[in-house]
């Protein structure tokens, strides 16, 4: 499925926050996780992840730290804050509402999915 670029942009923040809720991480690993979660369907321009991460940091949703892992290069790790967790919970509620509304209209009796299947 090709996913519309507005939808990709809108889902970027909750996706990144949710991934960081699993534990601290760094840019490339976050991007890999996004690809894995979406089965490669959500295509991000790699570089764009960083301005987004920096915005989350400015807003206080994540903290950052430069560290050198045992084997590897010095890199910046991002960690979710309590503020970030609160925003994530809020975003989750919003997306739940939207998806359940869409599901209701698509899967319900006489819904779009039924119509598509019949066609």
């Amino acid at each position, binding site marked *: 499925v090709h996913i519309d670029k507005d939808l990709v942009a809108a889902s970027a923040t909750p996706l990144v926050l949710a991934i960081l809720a699993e534990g601290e991480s*760094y840019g490339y690993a976050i991007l890999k996780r996004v690809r894995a979660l979406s089965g490669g369907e959500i295509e991000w*321009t*790699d570089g764009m992840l*960083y*301005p987004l991460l920096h915005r989350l940091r400015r*807003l206080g949703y994540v903290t950052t730290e430069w560290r050198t892992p045992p084997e590897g290069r010095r890199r*910046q790790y991002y960690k979710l804050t309590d503020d970030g967790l609160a925003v994530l919970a809020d975003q989750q509620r919003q997306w739940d509402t939207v998806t359940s509304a869409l599901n209701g209209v698509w899967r319900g009796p006489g819904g779009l999915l039924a119509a598509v299947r019949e066609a």
Partner: protein
Amino acid sequence: VSVESVESQIAEWRAYVATAPGVNGHDVDELEDHLRHQIAELSAVGLAPDEAFLVAVKRMGDLDALSREFAREHSGRLWKQLVLRGDDEPARAAGGWLEPLIFAVAAAVVVQVARLAAGFPDEEPNWLARNASLFVLPLLAASFARQRQLDTRRWVLTAAPFVLAALVVNLYPYETDSATEVLVALDLPVVLWFAVAYPYMGGTVQSHERRMDFVRFTGEWFIYYVLIALGGGVLMGLTAAILEPTGVDVERIAEWVLPSGAAGGVIVAAWLVEWKQRVVENMAPVLSMLFTPLFAVMLAGAAVVYAVTGLGGAFDRDLVSVFDALLLVVLGLVLYGISARDPSTSPDWMDRIQLVAVVSALALDVMVLGTMIARIGELGFTPNRTAALGLNLVLLVNLGGAAWLSARFLAGRSRLHRLERWQTTYLPVFAMWAATVVVILPPLFAFD
């Protein structure tokens, strides 16, 4: 294909990315780390190193778009190179030197015409002092409105405060030697400076990032203006020394050159901030780093001395003005310090020193307010006391909020972002108080 050739390709890519506006050294490190991960992974699935490099670079995305995203997020880094317009599309500031020069000359001419009409300095009519800022700042606002290519509606909104101000200060029937008239002369430049903020921000007043840009602009403009004034002073001094023996009337030359120079300097300094920023870019943070500790020491000392001796005896109107000027300077330093700070770093010793300065200023402000309220209770309200009381209250709330938020920031319980927001949210309060002094205070005190 050798590994070295990929290494050199990465180095070239790195150098190229580093030239993008809005991208700093840490960002390049981060992006390079990402690129290397991607290359390693692609190589692991069988791509040749140089192919892996090409794919990884492609996935990274178009550098222009990337740079624009970074610029949008870190507007502080490149606010001087790029000007974000109302629709948030970055546009390079269209920059010839001819246009600012025309505006500067226009300001110089307007001031000169007004001076001749007033017969200054032989005569010193009050309307000249009242209107002084109205001769220059509308031109500055117009030059920004032109550069930002504002639409007609925004041009009208830019002009409105200037027209209103001109009507108010010239139609009010001030009494002779009235205190409100002096207050208007002092506060109108502040009001109009905030009016310049509107076209400066491209007609977007809501954006807190643009407001912070305007704070930076104000700080750097001030530094440039002082530099220009110092240079002009040296020039005038030398001119006087050289021409004195020939019998030329140096005073008459100064009458012509000084007002025009002061007016044109306002525009030239603004233009320098906008386009020739390289020098100040390095100097302004250094200056604020140098003076914040010095002011912190001075304020803490003063707060202790006054807490011990009490304000009572030494307190008069002149001292209130000195205190207010001092508090405003501290506020300026703090504001500028925040705006020049990299928001991503954790609290350091500069933040602690800044907190010392703010808390000392707060203590001084509380003492001034206490004395002032006692005096008003004793002698009643006058225009001067009301204006001073209002200013001190406005400062008290600002400093109190700033002290609270920066203490929380130092304790790791809040983000710098909150502190920035507090200050940018508070800016209109200053504008509103100055406007109150100009518009409401005179009729309230019967133009006395």
